[in-house]
């Protein structure tokens, strides 16, 4: 069962890569990398069950975390083309 699930995840990953390479706009690529991260997380979890050592769920948790932070950082960068604080405006937390 987990073999089937991981094959499905792999196919979905492939499709996401295709989208990232094709992606007409930059936002398509970001979307692709975001979903790609989700799939990588799921793949890690299924591999854990496949190799019968599922105690490494911390890894998947780290993936979720880093994926989220990376996406936020990319968006922030793309909005202001700067990672720093947008100066002079009341834009705390804005994106």
């Amino acid at each position, binding site marked *: 069962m987990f073999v089937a699930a991981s094959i499905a995840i792999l196919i979905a990953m492939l499709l996401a890569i295709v989208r990232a390479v094709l992606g007409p706009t930059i936002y398509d690529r970001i979307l692709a990398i975001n979903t790609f991260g989700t799939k990588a997380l799921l793949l890690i979890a299924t591999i854990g069950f496949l*190799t019968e*050592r599922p*105690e*490494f769920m911390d890894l998947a948790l780290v993936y979720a975390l880093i994926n989220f932070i990376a996406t936020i950082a990319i968006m922030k960068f793309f909005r202001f083309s700067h990672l720093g604080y947008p100066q002079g405006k009341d834009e705390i937390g804005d994106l």
Partner: protein
Amino acid sequence: MDFPGLINYWIVIILMMVGFYIVIAQGNLIKKIIGLNIFQVSVFIFYITVGKVSDGSAPIMAAGIDTYSNPLPHVLILTAIVVGVATTALGLAMIVRIRTAYNSIESDEIERAEILEDDK
């Protein structure tokens, strides 16, 4: 040649050559850094594949498992990754300085600018 047994090395080599090509053939400095990263990752994969043992498990002791993969390459690569990111940061910092000095991150343009400076 033994096909299935050596395929991991071939993948590593192809990946490495892609990285190598990017480093030597691309003019853009940021692309060069990314190429360097790809090269690095290929070396990491090489080490990890050497340490892998068939039917082995991750080298964390647990009841009921007696074949483990080789932990030594893992340790080496673990440190190498962090050193890699440190060097990447250093390289990127240099790129930023180069940009302020020459107003470009393309290596040909930087060369041209240097020649101009020498002529003066």
